[in-house]
């Protein structure tokens, strides 16, 4: 009988412990959870529940007013920001600088013609700039404009224009594509300047939305150089 009892205890302990592993929506048991929930702001870890982690709270966090208690251990948000975000926009009228000392690009979306005529690529056409441009083009443009710039990337439906097939509940459907993607080697675009390309990447044009937030100015100029070599 003792054996049975011991076995029972062991098995139930094991069963209890299986609840510690992670999987699906369950994050699993954290060891020293305070360390996974940063006191300082951490990127992409916002917890705006005031009471989260009250059970492990060991510090008295500053009170908002005399009535409510200070926040609990896991809380990691800024009550004074929009959406309680940790992150803020830079202060108005400040200028961010990059290592080349370039000022931010200020031409608006509708200044394409002016940009195309006046902007000059500050980079030289060296092999390494064009090689970098190729890698960047393949990262940011390829899935829409296609590897060769023919406007036949996967998002445009691919080279055959077939689109991607998917079976949903036994029914074959074709995934939607993004229409109107320009063929960069078409006659209309053969002659565009590098400034034109830079402006289109930064501010977008027509159906193409702005990609300026994703790509640094230097990288945009590299891409512009590479697009010109594609168009040859």
């Amino acid at each position, binding site marked *: 009988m003792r054996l049975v009892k011991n076995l029972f205890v062991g098995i139930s302990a094991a069963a209890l412990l299986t609840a510690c592993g992670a999987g*699906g*929506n369950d994050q699993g048991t954290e060891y020293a959870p305070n360390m996974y929930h940063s006191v300082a702001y951490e990127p*992409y870890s916002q917890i705006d529940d005031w009471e989260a982690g009250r059970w492990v709270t060991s510090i008295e966090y500053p009170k908002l007013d005399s009535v409510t208690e200070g926040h609990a251990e896991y809380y990691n948000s800024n009550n004074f920001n929009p*959406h309680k975000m940790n992150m803020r926009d830079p202060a108005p009228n400040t200028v961010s600088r990059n290592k080349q000392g370039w000022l931010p690009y200020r031409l608006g979306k509708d200044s394409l013609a002016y940009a195309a005529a006046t902007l000059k690529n500050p980079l030289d056409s060296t092999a390494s700039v064009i090689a970098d441009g190729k890698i960047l083009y393949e*990262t940011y443009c390829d899935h829409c404009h296609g590897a060769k710039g023919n406007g036949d990337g996967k998002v445009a439906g691919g080279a055959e224009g077939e689109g*991607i097939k998917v079976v949903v509940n036994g029914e074959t459907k074709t995934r939607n594509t993004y*229409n*109107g993607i320009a063929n960069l080697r078409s006659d209309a675009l053969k002659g565009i300047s590098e400034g034109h390309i830079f402006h289109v990447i930064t501010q977008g044009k027509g159906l193409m939305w702005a990609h300026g937030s994703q790509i640094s100015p230097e990288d945009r100029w590299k891409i512009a150089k590479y697009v010109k070599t594609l168009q040859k």
Partner: protein
Amino acid sequence: MSSDSRFALLVLKTDIEPHMIKNFTSACKFFILVFVFAFVSSTSSAQEISTDPAAIKAGEGIFNANCKSCHKVKEKLVGPALAGVDERAPSIDWIKSFIKNPPGMIASGDAYANNLYKDYKPTMMTAFSSLKDEDIMNVLAYVKAKEAEVPKDDVIKDPVPGGENTEAGGSDLLNLVAIGVVIVLLLLVVTLALLISSLKRFLDQKNLNEEEKEVVHSPITLKSALSSPAFIFIVAFLVAALGFKTVINNLFAIGVQQGYAPKQPIAFSHKIHAGDLEIDCKYCHVGVTKGKSATIPSVNICMNCHNQIKEGAQTGASQIKQITDAYANNEPIKWVRIHNLPDLAYFNHAQHVVVGGVECQTCHGPIQEMEVVKQHSLLTMGWCIDCHRKTDIDTTRNAEYYDKMLKIHAEKKGSKAPFKVEDIGGLECSKCHY
């Protein structure tokens, strides 16, 4: 306008050839002749759309290279369907000048162009100023030819045996085979049991001595076997060992989130985006080559495509609508964080992805096949250290920087010794903890 210029030409000609003025009537006849000829020839070359296969072929090439992304012949895409455009547009000349400069036509206040633009605002067609008149005529020839074509889909509408279908058929077959095998095995067991009992009965009818009887009717029954000490020991050992193993495993799983795959607020699928559509990881995770954090894409990056793609094949509009709503209301999307190191450790993406040249998949697993992101690796200190012990440094990327280090390394450990992350200090506590 045009007749003016022709008249000027004629005058010019008469200047060069003065004998014509002498005979006014002949000059007049000549004038009329030239005028009529010029008019006829210009209209015939401008208004008539060729049915010549060569022209159609040339037109197809131009159409596919320049117009396909926005126009279809029979359906509306970004721009109107081009079928019948030669009849509905004011004139062929109008079409030519429009294609060469749509913004100009719209700005000039042309009524037809402005009406058209009203329907397609704010999309404006690209200007194709480099196309020649004959190119445009060839495109129109192609459009006309295509217009007359019977749609292929209606002719052959066969249920394509897709890859998925045959696959499903394959697994069904496997199941059937498995069930068949089980049935056959069960039948075998039953027949064997029947055989044994009939054999026993047959032997019992014979005159057997004690020894032989003992063999036939063995004293080791199920009950005696179950209560033997050997059996109890084996069972107890197995249960205890298994229990011990689960306890140890689970103790080690505390603080390890491997396998964590939370439901996200929007059913975003890496399989569709990174897998099928082959969008590069860095298109969305833009910070990964620049600094510590890989970053999660902001809403405007999703909108680069979902401003137009409003419905998904699997989830309809329900999920994508959340993106467009978030964008319209300027609200962040609250993605659930999956990978998370404790505060005490420092991990930098650029250091690994750019300098180390490690692929995302080495640490994050086959993300491009995941419908829901799952934590693939342990993310424990042992995991980091293990890789730092095993991975060679690629010194070719930044030879200038590594040359001195390699020299010192060779002096200390011999020129053949491998140059691992460990050897540049990848195991120093302070590189990861400070």
